[in-house]
């Protein structure tokens, strides 16, 4: 314990030092406020922490809020109190601020302010507006990532991209609209609301003359998109990004991941209302765009790490991929079977399926087929538009 850092001269006492520690955690993506600092102090005294091991035990339950932070806490604790690994602050933060999205890094926030002149008027718009400017924001993003690599066979101009986004919005809304209708039906048919009836019957001396129905409030269907951005999908990537962004714009709870050889959470970037920042984030993710595919491994990674939180019985999982995979197909089938047990619906959109003589001969695609609720073509704007009807039926 000889390596414990000395207090800096400016620190007035333990309280000061502790609030520095909380600030240290905050810069590493922990969401802690002044309230937590006070609790941390109270915890230290409640635990009568006089040595560092006890202090570590006492601070952990206060500072940590989920399993991921729990795993990172020790390294951050050591870095702050024991001067370990201080030279490499890149170890601990990983991509936490990126994933959270709601709490941008200070630099990013400043960047956003600087761009404010151009970004603010549209950014402050309501949901519909967001989806519109979403289309263009993604355009800037994809121009950086794809234009430089290969020719675009389809959807080259902004109007088409905007159209793809609008179609996606309609699809997302089709799911939501259906939800509304269902609620009305339930209001007609579900059980009696005894509480209200009792109230009403008082006026009639206890005669329940009026039957009041109880409505069931349905929770919204959620969307999860998994978009393949590997080399074989290159020519479609831009339009599909527009499409996915449209889906996200219409549904607050929707989430999206990109994958090629690994899986990347693209929700915050695709949702970002600041166009320049969104473009920036996507281009950061884009290293690896246009490379090989590890479809099975990426989906397995998704099921293992994110499915528990992102997917439930009321989730529609949309996979956009051509089904060309470098990994053996058996793994993919098992993964999809697991996902199927968790998800409400799995829909696979395959651009190749629109081709006249297409048959799902790719090993991965053939293995995946039995686990899908729908396998639909998506190679032209028309086929995307036709999806609306399909989705409404799901």
């Amino acid at each position, binding site marked *: 314990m000889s390596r414990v850092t000395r207090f800096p001269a400016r620190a007035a006492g333990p309280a000061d030092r502790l609030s520095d520690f909380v600030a240290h955690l905050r810069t590493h993506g922990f969401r802690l406020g002044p309230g937590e600092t006070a609790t941390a102090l109270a*915890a230290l005294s*409640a635990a009568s922490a006089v040595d560092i091991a*006890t202090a570590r035990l006492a601070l952990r339950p206060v500072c940590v*809020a989920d399993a991921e932070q729990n795993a990172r806490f020790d390294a951050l604790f050591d870095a702050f109190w024991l001067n370990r690994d201080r030279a490499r602050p890149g170890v601990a933060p990983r991509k936490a601020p990126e994933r959270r999205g709601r709490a941008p890094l200070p630099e990013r926030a400043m960047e956003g302010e600087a761009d404010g002149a151009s970004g603010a008027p549209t950014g402050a718009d309501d949901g519909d507006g967001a989806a519109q400017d979403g289309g263009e924001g993604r355009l800037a993003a994809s121009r950086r990532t794809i234009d430089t690599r290969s020719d675009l066979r389809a959807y080259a101009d902004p109007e088409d991209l905007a159209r793809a986004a609008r179609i996606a919005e309609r699809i997302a809304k089709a799911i939501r609209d259906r939800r509304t209708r269902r609620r009305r039906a339930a209001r007609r048919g579900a059980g009696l609301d*005894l509480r209200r009836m009792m109230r009403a019957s008082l006026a009639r001396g206890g005669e*329940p003359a009026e039957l009041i129905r109880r409505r069931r409030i349905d929770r919204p269907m959620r969307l999860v998109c998994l978009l393949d951005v590997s080399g074989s999908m290159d020519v479609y990537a831009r339009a599909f990004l527009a499409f996915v962004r449209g889906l996200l714009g219409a549904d607050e709870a929707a989430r999206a991941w990109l994958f090629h050889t690994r899986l990347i959470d693209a929700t915050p970037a695709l949702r970002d209302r600041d166009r320049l920042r969104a473009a920036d984030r996507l281009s950061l993710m884009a290293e690896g765009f246009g490379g090989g595919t590890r479809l099975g491994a990426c989906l397995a990674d998704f099921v293992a790490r994110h499915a528990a939180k992102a997917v439930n019985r009321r989730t529609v999982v949309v996979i956009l991929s051509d089904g060309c995979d470098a990994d053996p197909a058996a793994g993919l089938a098992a993964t999809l079977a697991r996902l199927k047990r968790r998800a409400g619906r799995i829909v696979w959109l395959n651009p190749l399926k629109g081709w006249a003589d297409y048959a799902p001969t790719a090993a991965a695609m053939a293995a995946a087929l039995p686990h899908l609720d729908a396998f639909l073509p998506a190679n032209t704007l028309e086929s995307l538009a036709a999806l609306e009807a399909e989705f409404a039926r799901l």
Partner: protein
Amino acid sequence: MRWTGTWTALRDRLDAAGYVASDTLAMALHLALSLGRPLLLEGAAGVGKTELAKVLAGLLDTRLIRLQCYEGLDASAAIYEWNYQRQLLAIRAGEGADADAEERIFSEKYLLTRPLLEAIRQPEPPVLLIDEIDRADEAFEAYLLEVLSDFQITIPELGTVAATARPHVILTANGARDLSDALRRRCLYAYVDYPDRRTELAILARRGPALSSALAGQIVGFVQDLRREDLEKVPGVAEMLDFAAALAGLGVNDLTDDPATLHATMVTLLKTEADQAQVTREVVERLAGRAA
């Protein structure tokens, strides 16, 4: 009963009550008790999250009130409900002279308390276990936040019921849904992991059947290795205890003795068809050989 000891004392008391807690967990529980904050326990199924609440209630010699969450849980199942049948009867019986009928039928007598209301009306602080909070909907979680911060419940017909004693609240979750940041902030947090080998041996000695130390070592080694296999449903501590009980019941003295019997006991550890298909007899033998 309030907790006034130190965290090491709490760990030892838990230990004596048959719950082997890690230092992290004991400290988290100690802080939750002494700071009066709810404790959120997260971790895989079968690592003893619910059990901790039960043991704590026994240790503090107080009531355990349990609210099992599920999708669609609403106020009438979690907080209170009026006894409608009784109200109906009362209205009919009191016909004619029912000027104060409304007051009468919306009184304590016709109130059915559900776990949350019950917990704040106890004379002594009980342990309130809110089990699998991630199964309940977001809307319920928001309501729960309100109850956990004020410890009072408003019944429109009756008024506000303030807590007579602040319950010790323990929430458990295993990742069916992501919890809101607000709820996480309100609670102290402890992640309960699968126990390490030493801890699991201690648990087996405390909770399991009487076994030779060699067999106990084999069992724990076997289960710990099995957890490293790629399974859908990783066996928890409860499964390990079932496994040990099954082996004791079958009179097995060494895991490598009888592969057929050992494979048959996998029903206590593997709870899905895919897992059972994956862990074949050969795999079982390999694991048993390594554990021996």
